[in-house]
């Protein structure tokens, strides 16, 4: 065990400040790391640097403590699956998957065995005799994935490997991916812009934005203790609700908040004492309740719209000049424009500096 892959201060500069800046993280042997971020965050650049497809402008990539600087891509024992799967159109699915083995002169019997095992693992085994033009986009992407996984490598680098599947298939495949990882037991670094994939698959989530690492943590940590409003709103559907207040005062766990539209008090929070200006209150839609009357720990608003979703209701509530989402049971019924009160769970609220977006948890 120990660190299989270690990345220290990795930098790659493109024009106009693009690229990645001072990236450091490590991956334990056999772990599953998801690099999560919006497009332009530097996720794919990071992956290409690990693969050796790009040269860094600074920093170090080590594998088992060995600097990869002078190691050619072909010698790095990494295998990469691309978002654009680039299959050979005249080769069957089988031959596409087999191509990295053929290039290494692996014998036919081994190829047959390995290709079919991987094809079954990714659920393409019934289509191996077909040409790429005869299978769906999702099956093409599975083929690209199988071609990456069939190679005997130490680290598998996966760039949005299920992004092109339709929603239903993507949800199925996401679950299957963890099985694939368990079966193979290899170190995997997986790039995604979908927070669900990160939460569902990762041992460690590395969150990137604008070429920088924003937070590194377990799925539980990044979801329940976001370091800033970027992370808070990147994870979750709907994203975390944020309501700005002009002044915030915490004393002995009691939080008093004042804004132009009113004031509220929440007791029993875990925040340290503080007294400050522009602050955003954060809470997730499923951690609060709606009530007709004001009581302890409520903030006031009015119903903007109600949407029945499955066995629940999603209320959009206007609070001041902001809108927040609240999920309730179907039995909770309020009319359009009705005044309501949102009862917060004092253990499940967050505070962020309005200017910097940084979390104020654990700060005096």
């Amino acid at each position, binding site marked *: 065990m120990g660190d299989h892959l270690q990345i220290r201060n990795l930098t790659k500069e493109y024009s106009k400040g693009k690229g990645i800046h001072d990236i450091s993280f490590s991956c334990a042997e056999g772990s599953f790391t998801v690099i999560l971020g919006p497009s332009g965050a530097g996720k794919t650049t990071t992956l290409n640097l690990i693969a050796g497809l790009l040269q860094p402008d600074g920093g170090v990539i080590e594998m088992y403590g060995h600097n990869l600087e002078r190691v050619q891509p072909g010698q790095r024992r990494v295998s990469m699956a691309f978002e654009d799967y680039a299959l050979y159109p005249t080769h069957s699915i089988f031959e596409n998957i087999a191509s990295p083995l053929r290039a290494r002169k692996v014998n036919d019997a081994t190829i047959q065995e390995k290709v079919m095992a991987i094809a079954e693992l990714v659920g393409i085994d019934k289509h191996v005799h077909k040409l790429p033009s005869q299978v769906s986009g999702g099956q093409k992407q599975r083929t690209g994935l199988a071609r990456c996984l069939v190679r005997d490598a130490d680290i598998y680098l996966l760039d949005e490997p299920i992004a092109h599947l339709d929603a239903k298939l993507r949800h199925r495949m996401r679950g299957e991916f963890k*099985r694939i990882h368990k079966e193979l037991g290899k170190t995997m670094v997986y790039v995604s812009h979908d927070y*669900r994939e990160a939460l569902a*698959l990762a041992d460690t989530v590395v969150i990137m934005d604008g070429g920088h690492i924003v937070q590194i943590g377990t799925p539980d940590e990044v979801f329940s203790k976001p370091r800033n409003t970027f992370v808070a709103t990147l994870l979750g559907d709907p994203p975390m609700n944020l309501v700005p207040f002009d002044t915030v005062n915490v004393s002995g766990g009691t939080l008093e908040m004042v804004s132009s539209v009113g004031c509220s008090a929440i007791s029993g929070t875990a925040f340290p004492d503080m007294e400050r200006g522009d602050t955003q209150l954060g809470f997730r839609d499923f951690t609060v309740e709606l009530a007709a009357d004001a009581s302890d720990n409520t903030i006031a608003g009015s119903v903007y*719209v109600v*949407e*029945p979703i*499955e066995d629940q209701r999603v209320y959009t509530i206007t609070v001041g000049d902001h809108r927040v989402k609240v999920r309730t049971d179907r039995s909770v019924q309020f009319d359009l424009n009705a005044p309501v009160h949102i009862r917060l769970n004092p253990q499940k609220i967050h505070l962020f500096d309005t200017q910097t977006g940084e979390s104020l948890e654990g700060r005096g």
Partner: protein
Amino acid sequence: MGQVKLDNVWKLYGTFEAVKGVSLEIHDGEFVSLLGPSGCGKTSTLRMVAGLEEISRGNAYIDAVRINDLDPGNRHVAMAYESYALYPHLTVFENVAYPLRIRKVPDGEITTRVNDICASLGITGYLNDCPSALSGGAQQRTGLARALIRPASVYLLDEVLSHLDATERTMLRAEIRRIQKLMELTALFVTHDQLEAMAMSDRIIVMNDGEIQQIGTPEEIYDTPANLFVAGFVGEPPMNIISVRRVREGGADFLSIVDQKVAASDLGVGWIPDLDEFFVGIRPKNVTLDTADSAAGIRGSVHTFEMLGDHTLSSIDLGNGEVVFVVDEFDVRLGLDDAVSIVLEPDHVLFYDPTSGDLLHRP
């Protein structure tokens, strides 16, 4: 006024039957969605109401007037499209004002009405911009404003959210619903997205293969899908459909699922269909993981497990490729291949006919 009635309406393209005997009613002030996969006949149905397609057979009425032979312009309908179809050389203001200009509405009134509708759709900031300068979301809002600005008996919305990104779609979905409610508009909305249909509608009409599968409130459609098609189409993840054999032993009924037998009385459902084989339908949210190893438990192993923030999703392998999805609390933790038991919440168990696929009703 705003009422629509279709009575046994057909649409034929040559010998192809795109819409097969659709009958429906939309009441005044109601938001109704036509929901189904591509090719199900939903758009043809909408276009027949709009007058963009001829009605091959049957009768259509708006406000009790038969419209089969009326020109689109005389039907009192307003329509918004999937492609925004804006005039590229006109500003947002003039695009929205256009239906009023051709009706010779006075300038002062036009200004007031355009400003009002654009404010409720959140595009006041773009009034002097040309469409090409706008995001897809703002263009679609402009298209909607142009449809909603003129009085009509019924507003026809054709996949108006489908080109937008997820955030825009969720926002505009809520805005449309609010405006429709506040203005008490009658609306017929076409979509292939079950979540949109559920979130926006008073009633949903599910279509497949040119035929209506079910008409009901979002709750009715979700709780009691009329057949296996609706059960599979509405809800994500979709309803679990479990193949079951009925076995009678010693005067008692047992349900055989894969190779496990559960006494019908232990299941607590009170009634089972009088068939040798049938399907049990149950939503992933209504399957619970059983730690007590109760008599109603069905044994399996964890095939997949996902923590998704506000909930967890697992799939439990019962053997023979029979997999049941379970949506559970966010703090549940399961390991792959863990042995577990599942229990079906009896109030939520549905039964389906294996031949017709139809819901079997309790007597």
